[in-house]
């Protein structure tokens, strides 16, 4: 069975998946009027995964079901389990297999490069651990398009509800958030969110250079610093189904310090304002 054919051929024919009743009215209303624009876009969902075979068995069918109009690709970041087999079983267009572990930044960048080379208009990062609900992807893309943004961050802190991480994590997130505000003047409520949509312009920039170790907050600052538009959109997050966060608890404090250094270093760099080109 060749399921990959469906991802390209059925893009315009298939209606959007029914929205969940839990979605707020404003979201439904916002995306409702602009379905045509979103429909015409070629969207690639990038699923970075490190040893997430179990979780992917749930997530990938969910992606087919809830986002039939979008393509997706799993980036296997040197997994030692069946991650690649699970992705491959769903067709050859669905897997980028890195020869060894590059870390989340290198894996996501690989997906971005693929999306850019394949001519996609928008790419969406949706982590392989099941934290990000595919039902939210369409509204995230709509937010990107409607707000004319280059990067739309799915934030779990704008509206209430869903999984909002532990207290210690939230403190760390608040520090990173203030730090980004200090350097960019913009308040981003959920800078560590890996659930985000990206325009083609930003894909081009990030294909060349993308933060390696802590890409989520760093890339937000990098985008702002280079003159790209960043938007936020409320999403609900789920508790991860399997695997381990790439941010382990003991390293959390160090994580915050390193991000702050990385952002300060980027602030010192001349960027030449690629967003204007």
């Amino acid at each position, binding site marked *: 069975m*060749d399921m990959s054919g469906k991802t390209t051929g059925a893009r315009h024919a298939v209606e959007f998946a029914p929205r969940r009743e839990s979605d707020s009215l404003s979201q439904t209303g916002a995306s409702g009027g602009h379905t045509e624009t979103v429909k015409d876009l070629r969207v690639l969902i990038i699923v970075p995964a490190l040893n997430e075979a179990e979780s992917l068995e749930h997530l990938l069918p969910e992606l087919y079901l809830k986002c039939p109009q979008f393509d997706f690709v799993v*980036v296997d970041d040197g997994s030692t389990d069946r991650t690649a087999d699970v992705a491959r079983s769903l*067709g*050859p*267009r669905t*897997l*980028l*297999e*890195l*020869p*060894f572990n*590059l870390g989340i930044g*290198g894996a996501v*960048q*690989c997906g971005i*490069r*693929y999306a850019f*080379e394949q001519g996609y208009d928008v790419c969406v990062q949706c982590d392989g651990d099941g934290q990000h609900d595919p039902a939210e992807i369409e509204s995230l893309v709509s937010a990107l398009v409607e707000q004319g943004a280059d990067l739309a961050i799915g934030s779990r802190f704008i509206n209430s509800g869903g999984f909002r991480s532990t207290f210690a994590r939230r403190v760390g997130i608040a520090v990173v958030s203030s730090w980004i505000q200090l350097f960019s003047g913009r308040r981003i409520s959920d800078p560590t969110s890996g659930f985000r949509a990206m325009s083609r312009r930003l894909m081009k920039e990030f294909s060349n250079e993308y933060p*390696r170790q802590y890409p989520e907050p760093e890339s937000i600052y990098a985008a702002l610093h280079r003159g790209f538009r960043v938007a936020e959109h409320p999403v609900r997050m789920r508790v991860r189904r399997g695997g381990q966060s790439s941010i382990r608890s003991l390293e959390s404090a160090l994580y915050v310090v390193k991000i702050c250094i990385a952002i300060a270093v980027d602030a010192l760099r001349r960027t030449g304002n690629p967003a204007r080109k």
Partner: protein
Amino acid sequence: MNEDRIRLIAGAVALLYLAFIVFKLRTQQLSVNSSLMWLLSGLIMLLLTVFPGLIYWAAQLAGFEVPSNAVFVLWLLTLTALSFSQAVALSKNGDQLRKAAQDNALLRQVLEESKSKGSSASQGDAS
């Protein structure tokens, strides 16, 4: 007498050190580019064992009370510079490696896609 013995040992060590670097160069386990600093350090070692007066002269010039401290400081700075230059080289290697790994994954995807297209086409011919 004692000093002569130390000079003899130091000279032998410097010669062995240089010989080892040249051996590594000959067997191509060390690139000429990165060997320059090491060769230079060996030559300075040799020079100082032949003319130890240079150390006393340089230490006095810089204001060291004990000449051996001058040697330690010099050596420490040299090693710091060497290890820093290696950190820079490693970062560059890491960047290149990351790009090569991504290229590998992207090319492999294209290959697998064309392979599966080929196999489905041949199946179509058979039926």
